[in-house]
């Protein structure tokens, strides 16, 4: 999950809804080159010289799940504050300099990483590298500016969460699903904890985690490693490495109890339903199940020809929409889940029963190997589309590296997906979906009193 924190307002919305396999698109797709600076900072170049533009990103291996209890929202708050200036580049100037040079910049925070990026003419690359390197160590924070930015983040929370019943419920559902793992805490932070975040909290978190040996540089577009290497050495290579603590990620206990989270809200116009299980990720649990689970989600709930949609929306007409989703790109436990909206005249309970029945049928009878082959083929093909962008490959590669994957692993994605069999899909399905400890969430309308 990502939380874009600075919105310039997208100038060009994506016109196409082709799914880019985020975080794990594959072999001979990006062809990134990489080396590591003497201070431990990894440097990656992804060459695409169609236009004279680069996307420059710095990824820090720290995110919302690395916050201490009681400090929810701190990683994201700090990300906002990184625009508040250094001695060389005073507050507000970072974005102004980038746009004065025809560039666009942004930043976002996830549970496992925080990233800063600019897309700019390739001859301006040294400029943004110099400024990004500068704010890796030289941040200065003014008390009044921190106070104003805290209000901005509270407004952001109201926009994203408090004004939206679905987001409010999702926040509570996460808190129920993860019993102990820090993904249970909202990335943006609980409102009362955001209000209490201080300048000192932010600076302490910054000094603890922001170091070259905890960062990855990714430059994509009109760049070659030959040109990037000396620039990386000049701007980032001179920053001394510092000790960075191990990430403390408390382990999740066994999930043995089903839970139910319900929210009735005046702004909810209709009922909706989800059910989630914890599922393996690349670094948690049985990671060999990750890709089979992705294929399973595609086969049973990935679109209008998927099994659930055909059965529940087209044939039985018990649902208006229904589908499945999988994760896997996290350091900690991922999720696998189902969602649905009941059709007019059907209750959320009827929808729930219908999904359960279909799930039992799948677990009993298995999935059709031909369906698995279809899904695998189209997932592999979709990897080609991932190349058609300067910024998307930088995001995908940076995100995968930030959680600890290697370039070889990123590049072997199509081969790995291509090798997934129906047996593996069923093994993964049984490993995850027969566990009792799932969380069901229900959103219901509530008449305004």
């Amino acid at each position: 999950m990502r939380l874009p924190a600075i919105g310039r307002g997208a100038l060009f919305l994506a016109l196409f809804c082709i799914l880019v396999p985020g975080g794990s698109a594959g072999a001979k797709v990006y062809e990134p080159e990489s080396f590591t600076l003497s201070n431990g900072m990894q440097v990656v170049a992804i060459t695409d010289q169609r236009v004279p533009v680069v996307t420059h990103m710095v990824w820090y291996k720290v995110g919302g799940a690395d916050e201490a209890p009681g400090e929810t929202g701190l990683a994201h708050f700090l990300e906002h504050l990184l625009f508040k200036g250094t001695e060389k580049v005073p507050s507000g100037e970072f974005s102004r300099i980038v746009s004065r040079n025809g560039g666009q910049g942004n930043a976002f925070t996830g549970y496992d990483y925080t990233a800063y990026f600019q897309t700019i003419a390739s001859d301006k690359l040294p400029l943004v590298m110099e400024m990004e390197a500068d704010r890796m160590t030289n941040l200065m924070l003014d008390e009044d500016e921190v106070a104003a930015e805290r209000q901005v983040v509270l407004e952001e929370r109201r926009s994203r969460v408090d004004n939206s019943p679905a987001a409010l419920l999702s926040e509570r559902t996460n808190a129920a699903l993860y019993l102990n793992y820090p993904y249970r805490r909202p990335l943006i932070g609980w409102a009362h904890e955001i209000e209490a975040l201080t300048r000192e909290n932010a600076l302490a978190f910054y000094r603890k985690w922001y170091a070259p040996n905890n960062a990855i540089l990714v430059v994509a577009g009109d760049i070659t490693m030959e040109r990037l290497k000396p620039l990386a050495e000049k701007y980032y290579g001179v920053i001394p490495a510092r000790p960075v603590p191990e990430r403390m990620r408390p382990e999740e206990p066994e999930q043995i109890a089903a839970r139910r989270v319900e929210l009735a809200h005046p702004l909810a116009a209709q009922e909706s339903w989800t059910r989630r299980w914890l599922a393996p990720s690349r670094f948690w649990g049985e990671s060999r199940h990750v890709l089979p689970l992705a294929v399973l989600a595609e086969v049973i709930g990935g679109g209008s020809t998927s099994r659930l949609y055909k059965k529940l929306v087209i044939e039985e007409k018990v649902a208006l929409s229904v589908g499945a989703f999988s994760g896997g790109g996290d350091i900690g436990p991922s999720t696998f889940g189902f969602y649905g909206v009941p059709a007019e005249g059907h209750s959320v309970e009827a929808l729930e029963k219908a999904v359960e029945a279909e799930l039992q049928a799948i677990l009993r009878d298995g999935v059709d190997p031909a369906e698995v082959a279809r899904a695998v083929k189209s997932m592999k093909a979709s990897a080609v589309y991932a190349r058609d962008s300067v910024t998307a490959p930088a995001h995908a590669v940076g995100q995968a590296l930030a959680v600890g994957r290697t370039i070889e692993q990123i590049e072997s994605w199509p081969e790995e997906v291509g090798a997934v069999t129906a047996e593996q899909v069923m093994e993964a399905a049984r490993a995850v979906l027969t566990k009792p400890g799932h969380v069901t969430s229900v959103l219901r309308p509530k008449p305004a009193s």
Partner: protein
Amino acid sequence: MTTMLFRCAVFALGTLLVLGRAGGAEAIEIKRVVSPGGIEAWLVEDHKNPIITLSASFKGGAAADPDGKEGLADMVAALLDEGAGPYDSEAFRRQLEDRVIGLGFSAGRDGFSARLQTLTEHSDTAFELMRLAMSEPRFDPEPVERIRAQIVSSLKRSATRPQTIASETWWRAAFPDHPYGRPDSGTVDSVGRITVEDMKGFAGKVLTRDQMEIGVVGDIDPQRLGLLLDRTFGALPDTPAQTPLEAAQLSAVGETFVVEQAVPQSVVVFGHRGIPRDDPDRFAAAILMEIMAGGFGSRLTEEIREKRGLTYGIYAYSLPLDGAQMVMGGVSTRNDKVAETVRLVREIWAEMAENGPTEQEVRDAKTYINGSFPMQLTSSAPIAGMLVSLQRDKRPLDYLEKRPELIDSVTMTDLKRVAKRLFHADELTFVVVGQPKDLKATAPVPQPRS
């Protein structure tokens, strides 16, 4: 069809847009391709990836929906890829999904657009499916009722969303007697009334070769594109232009409307008249809008977000539609800060009209507008969309080369004059959805038309 191609060879004219070469990047070349059958498309060839991307637009969107059938354009857009020719909905979707072909349609206020993205190896199938969707859509009962139910559900969902309420109220107030005042996607009632005949009629009327613009990017040459253009679009009727949309005057000028809703944060939409797409002052207006609302460093973000922490996001933009031109904006802020935020927007607006921009702001905005242009070209879909806009706006083939000069040549005298023409603080119409404190509505909220 092949014989025809050879009889009248594909006609292609090119222009080279050199974007500066810092690294090893190449220039982008826009070619005007005319098929043997006379269908025009603008093409950017790019053989790096085996991908072809097409964008097409047609005249006639939601504003052309018949009264009482609001939402027709949207519903047609949702159903064209739900079965066509020999394929029922499932078979059609399977053809698309198995080959990872992206085909979709969408309706805007004034126009209707189609988009296609395919791997080169599946391009024959992809273009054929697009042809079928446009020329032989089936509108079978099952998908029609399924999609109708989904649209109704989405209308119910958005009916409680503060952002939707604010926007629909604004348009209803500004255009009480014009199609723009109706909800784009219709209402639960109007969508319930739409018939298959309505949809077939709409498709036949809107999907025509007249006023169609096509942009193509990717792994295809002019020759092959010419062939595919004729195959795909050649059978569309060439009926004459539809009656142009009546020009509208904005109503409720300067009013403030408050829609009560129990939310912690009020959502505000504002706007007033703007300037047309072809206006000679459009370059000055683009510079001024960048200074006013171009994200960080712009006046609105600086004053309202950065200095005062009143919002996470404030935006404004020019919206030159066919029937009316607007400057629109929006902001969200907690209920006890709405009055202050609205007052600030008016002050910032008035100050710009009064004194115009500073020299520094103008320099920065010009370098941003010109320098950021290549950023729109970093993936195929936006390039295809841009090729369509250029044709819709009747720009010459070399427009992109000339645009930087046109931006740079805008003078401070122009900008001061245009600032007075563009920003009218007392004309801003505000709609607030929430529970704003200390903010008085000046007029009752207009009710939906029956």
